């Protein structure tokens, strides 16, 4: 068969994608309910969302929300930790409790024939955990060991120092979600009970159900298991403060004398997820460092070969989360790498992207959207964001249109704001003796010994 292979073939007729219709049945005195039927698979995925996360942890109790979320499935009124685990495994279910800056999540899934048992167990764990003091001690010990382990990972160390510089000691965003050893060590059982009591209220809670089920079935079960729910026994902690104004550019080297490579973070404060310019900022970030063919990756990896990969991210939180550029690179090329990253940020901030690059980025955002919706948990996570970020019901339907309407000027405007380089925090974890001279030109340089290095 002979034909011209020199040009890419044109697309066939578009098969449009539409986010599934979900139902929002009301339950008096109960949580917000969202049900998305996906009858094709014999599975059901439930997610119970408590809509306040780690951003209200006191700064002297950093890690409270993450530890509290971990404790939810360690005991309920009727079941101890091992009985919960045993029930989950007999149902062939997977159960996960998790937390991020904006919420606490109890996700449980299995074959839909087990739905009543799954919903009951999920409700007990999310709403009526016993938060036993003995389990807290056990979990605290595990968490402290995990923090010790993370402190040996260069990417974790770089990330923690970067947000520490950007947000300072008084803002919740200035540390890892897992908290600090000091914070985790200080948390007591009464604080965990108060933490839960403040969050487990009907007006802050959402029950998301996706899969082989129906709104009627979910409401009937929710009526049973979310009934008699006192809720709201404790006051909510205050909202986090506004992040501090950034000083001028700073460079921090965290010294690891023998490291084989240098881990780099370049960070500043980004926009809140609900900000009007957030979508334009996402697109600017995508073009800069959010995909393989981004400007940063094509330059530092494909042109210079000094890294396995470089990417940039937006925090995407209720508050103004961090924007950051990350990579692990040749120590000898660290100065060059930082120079190139700053130059790419300046270039993106100073001129609108060419039309083709803009259109490619927009179709990437639109085209990859359904990819993340292949599984029930992917769908449930998206529904949860509607609840957590107060998104309108047509959020996903209107998304392609909102992406399509972004202009090069929108991107340039948001990039000019997002990608300022005069107030960056630059953190390098690696051998200071080889890094200091390379990084001095970029700002006031501080070298810290790595408190996490063994025996230092």
């Amino acid at each position: 068969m002979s034909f011209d292979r020199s040009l890419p073939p044109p697309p066939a007729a578009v098969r449009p994608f539409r986010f599934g219709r979900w139902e929002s049945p009301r339950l008096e005195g109960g949580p917000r309910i969202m049900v998305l039927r996906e009858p094709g698979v014999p599975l059901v995925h439930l997610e119970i969302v408590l809509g306040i996360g780690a951003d209200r942890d006191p700064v002297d109790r950093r890690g409270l929300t993450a530890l509290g979320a971990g404790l939810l499935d360690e005991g309920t009124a009727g079941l101890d930790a091992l009985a919960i685990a045993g029930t989950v495994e007999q149902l062939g279910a997977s159960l996960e409790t998790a937390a991020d800056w904006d919420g606490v999540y109890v996700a449980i899934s299995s074959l839909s024939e087990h739905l009543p048992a799954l919903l009951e167990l999920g409700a007990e764990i999310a709403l009526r955990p016993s938060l036993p003091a003995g389990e807290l001690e056990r979990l605290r010990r595990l968490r402290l060991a995990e923090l010790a382990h993370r402190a040996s990972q260069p990417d974790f160390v770089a990330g923690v120092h970067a947000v520490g510089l950007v947000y300072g000691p008084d803002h919740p965003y200035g540390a890892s979600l897992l908290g600090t050893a000091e914070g985790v060590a200080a948390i007591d059982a009464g604080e965990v009970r108060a933490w839960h009591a403040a969050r487990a209220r009907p007006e802050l809670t959402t029950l998301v159900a996706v899969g082989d089920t129906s709104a009627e079935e979910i409401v009937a079960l929710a009526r049973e298991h979310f009934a008699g729910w006192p809720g709201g026994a404790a006051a909510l902690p205050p909202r986090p403060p506004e992040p501090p104004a950034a000083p001028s550019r700073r460079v921090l080297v965290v010294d690891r004398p023998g490291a084989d490579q240098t881990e780099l973070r370049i960070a500043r404060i980004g926009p809140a997820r609900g900000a009007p310019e957030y979508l334009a900022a996402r697109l600017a970030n995508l073009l800069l460092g959010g995909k393989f063919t981004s400007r940063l990756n094509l330059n530092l990896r494909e042109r210079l070969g000094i890294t396995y990969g470089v990417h940039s991210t937006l925090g995407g939180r209720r508050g103004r989360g961090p924007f950051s550029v990350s990579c692990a690179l040749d120590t000898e090329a660290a100065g060059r790498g930082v120079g190139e990253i700053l130059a790419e940020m300046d270039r993106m901030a100073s001129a609108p992207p060419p039309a083709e690059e803009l259109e490619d980025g927009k179709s990437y955002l639109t085209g990859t959207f359904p990819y993340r919706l292949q599984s029930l948990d992917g769908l449930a996570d998206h529904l949860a964001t509607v609840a957590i970020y107060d998104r309108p019901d047509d959020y996903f339907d209107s998304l392609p249109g909102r992406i399509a309407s972004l202009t090069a000027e929108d991107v340039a405007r948001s990039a000019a704001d997002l990608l300022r380089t005069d107030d960056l925090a630059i953190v390098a974890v690696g051998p200071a003796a080889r890094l200091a001279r390379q990084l001095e030109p970029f700002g006031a340089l501080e070298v810290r010994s790595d408190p996490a290095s063994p025996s230092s």
Partner: protein
Amino acid sequence: MIHRHLDFPFVRHRLANGLEVVLQPDSRLPLVTVDLWYHVGSKNERPGKTGFAHLFEHMLFQGSANVDTNGHFTHLQKIGGVANGSTSHDRTNYYETVPAHHLELALWLEADRMGFLLPAMTSAKLENQREVVMNERRQRVDNQPYGRAFETLNELLFPAGHPYHWPVIGTMEDIAAATLADVTAFFEAHYRPNNAVLTLVGDFHPDSALALVEKYFADIPGGDPPPPVATPAASHAGERRAVLEDAVRLPRVYAAYRVPPFGTSAWTAADVLATALASGKSSPMYRDLVYGRQIAQNVSVAALPTELEGSLVVAATGHPETDPDELLGALDEHLERARREALAARDLERCRNGLLTAYVEQLQRFDLRADILAQATTLLGEPGRYADRLLEYSRVSPEDIRAFAAATLAPEDRAVVTVVPRADPGRRRT
């Protein structure tokens, strides 16, 4: 019971040039995954040329006769495609999930690099990707806590000359020494349609999809079968141990055993045993080491699905003050019991439920389902053999698992690697 949900229809077709094609239509989402497996991995390398299969995977993203350098990603990302490649001991794959109306673009791209790669290869591209891969190795292995443990474990588990003896990513020296002549020879020996399986899962009609596959792949010539992989008969004698000092805070121990290959019922017994011992909070190892004695921060057991033979790897991370020998001793008590006593029927049922639900959850995703079909076709010769594992899960008895453990998990024939915090953080071995 659960099986009725695991049976999904597929179409299999073999082109005249030897390319195996597996098609599995599903119109739940307007997406299609194109997953091209080549039956070549690091096992096809030889000492002194290690890391080549993986380096080659990078080169396949550097353009071909009709696709520019990085054109593969550019073409796919501009239409909202998600693409990557991966290399293991046994096979290398290239995959993309794209909006369904761009199926033909994905096939054009994969066919161009299967049929027309060499005209676009240059030493400048190779030089660049060698640097990238050396940075990948530093990032994933050398500068990563516990990063060298796994390659040390395989080095001890499989004797010198065994195709699993060396790491998939290769040694720094070998990566640095790769030449353009190596690239060409490797391509010609292994990147042929008769050594590949093309799997499509998603929103397409099988007849028209097959016509497109024919259009782009049928005229790429097949070649000789790749050279056979020699496996030395000789085994190590006795238990082999290594202690690594690393920039870590928590000690970790690994113990590995050689088990029969993926696809055998003994391998599935290993898979069930791994799940029974350490998967989930009610598993005996978790209950004892993490929950009860609290000498471990985590514990895991996994059966690795490799082709020449499998391996079963047990690993546990201690607390800062845990004595690694005590940790290994505690793991050994459980392994000893597994050799002596059959599982309770209830525990077997728990594993079965967990394994099957995890499988059903994977099947939701087009890309993971394509991998399951491609794995069965590439390693076992038949796409339908993906179901063997599921049948075996329901067939295997507690006594089968005990007999497997007794026969295979011999402490006198295993590799043990212990990673301990380095005493002097300022000095590293080079």
